[in-house]
């Protein structure tokens, strides 16, 4: 049955009436920035003097030659490359343990997830003290068990590991909960069938549980890497200048400094475009890898 023309128009009118506020704000605050970020990366926009000239590839050339930017890329890869795999292994391990536990499940779930819900800046403040080389409990603990205390955030070699340790504590619970849901979705009869066939618990884990969990692992990896590339808050709070010798200066931190400390908007925009390119490239690589290794029922 076709609606009469008038009713059509009424429906169009209602739709656009409902849609326009979102549409307008979406265009101004997302679509326009999405396009202008590329354009900006070819200018030398300066919010203080108001200058804005087209400078071609100059910003990109600057980035290629800037050792600080190289450092920022390396630091980002360092953070992602260490944090994400560690997070994956530890959270999967803990999820398996919680899944096996009978008593205190709620207590364990709450304890491991609590850091996830707490405000990042406030807990980073707490960890600043835990890491304090002289007064902090971590170094006291190291001394207690007879190890050399370390400089943590004040030492170029230890600053990034310290940030990673904090980030693991902050984020583990999230992946644990995801893995727990994944583990609980595995049909019990598959595990029982494997037991009947004489598989031991290790074989069951590696041959049954792990393959069935592969979509979840893939999801956790994908999200973990993308989020690792965007890390900023804990860096900015715990190491306000990018750490000793710029040892924790990651890409978003570099962008922030260029744009809002040096007021080099064009340069920062170019760095943002590079970051975007890396995130897209990674997503594509992961898609390819995922298609090959992820078991889909």
């Amino acid at each position, binding site marked *: 049955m076709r609606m009469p023309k008038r009713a059509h128009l009424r429906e169009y009118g209602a739709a656009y009436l409902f849609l326009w506020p979102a549409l307008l704000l979406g265009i101004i605050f997302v679509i326009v920035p999405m396009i202008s970020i590329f354009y900006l990366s070819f200018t030398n926009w300066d919010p203080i003097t108001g200058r804005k000239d087209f400078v071609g590839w100059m910003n990109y050339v600057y980035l290629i030659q800037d050792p600080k930017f190289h450092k920022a890329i390396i630091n980002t890869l360092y953070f992602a490359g260490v944090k994400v795999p560690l997070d994956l292994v530890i959270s999967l391990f803990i999820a398996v343990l919680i899944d096996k536990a009978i008593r205190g499940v709620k207590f*364990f779930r709450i304890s491991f997830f609590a850091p996830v819900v707490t405000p990042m800046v406030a807990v980073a403040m707490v960890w600043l003290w835990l890491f304090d080389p002289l007064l902090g409990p971590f170094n006291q603990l190291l001394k207690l068990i007879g190890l050399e205390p370390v400089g943590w955030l004040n030492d170029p070699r230890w600053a990034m590991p310290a940030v990673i340790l904090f980030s693991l504590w902050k984020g583990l619970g999230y992946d644990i909960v995801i893995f727990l849901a994944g583990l609980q979705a595995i049909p019990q009869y598959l595990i029982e069938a494997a037991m009947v066939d004489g598989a031991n618990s290790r074989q069951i884990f590696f041959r049954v549980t792990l393959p069935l969990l592969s979509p979840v692992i893939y999801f956790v990896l994908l999200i973990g890497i993308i989020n690792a590339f965007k890390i900023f808050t804990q860096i900015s709070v715990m190491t306000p200048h990018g750490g000793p010798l710029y040892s924790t200066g990651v890409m978003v931190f570099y962008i922030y400094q260029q744009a809002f400390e040096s007021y080099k908007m064009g340069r920062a925009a170019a760095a943002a475009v590079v970051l975007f390119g890396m995130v897209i490239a990674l997503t594509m690589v992961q898609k390819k890898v995922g298609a090959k290794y992820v078991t889909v029922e």
Partner: protein
Amino acid sequence: MLQWNRASRFWLYFLLLTGALAMIFPFVWMFLSAFKTDADIYAYPPRWLPSHWRVENFIDVFRIIPFARYYLNSVFVTSMITLGQLLLSILAAYSFARLRFPLKSTIFILAIATLIMPFEVLMIPTFIIVHRLGWLDTYQGLIVPFLFNGFSIFFLKQFFEAVPKDLEDAAKIDGCGYLGILIHVILPNTKPAVGTITLFTFLTHWRSYIWPLIITNTTRMRTLPIGLKYFIGEGGEQYHLMMAAACMAILPVLVVYIVAERQFVKSMTFTGLKR
């Protein structure tokens, strides 16, 4: 299930308990330190408990920084973003899910395309736009850029589509207009989804850091995370005061979380798109 012997049970609980205590330790340390005196902080060997419980630390925080102002700013900005985004997303999602109009699929694809770029990439042009509008260091500047959210629209649309068409037809016969259908048919049948996205949006913006850091430059406009960040410098390594401030920022969240654990976990994990 596999039969577990006593030894492996012991190790299971031993590992879990050690892990859980390690996760809780920073909170306990924070809480105890918030009541310590200056001397307790510098004591060697370090002491677990305060020599006397110094409640004045909390008052000192209010004296050094406008903590209440930061807190109210955060509450106001986060609530306005959540309410505004919810309203705009519900209306847009309803149009996409239930109405026919020209250019529908083009506009929808555009809305989804906005999810490709992380905010960290977009913050510079967004900053310039807000600067042009003269909104630096204002509530509008903190709120308006986040009222549109492609993900909220997409998420709600999925649920709105699932509401049976029959219910809508019945309401139409009763003389309901489009807005009436949305309010009396769609929303009552999608309450859990709306609740989830509300809590999710609130939590996301409660922890918002980089944007308020960029666009606020007076203490008047600072939100809680930014106020705390500057307190680290302004407080001058006074750990007992820093811990008192951290306590006031963390404990309310922790209490609400422990009370409404299930809802919290659901809202934060139903998607990993934003964290």
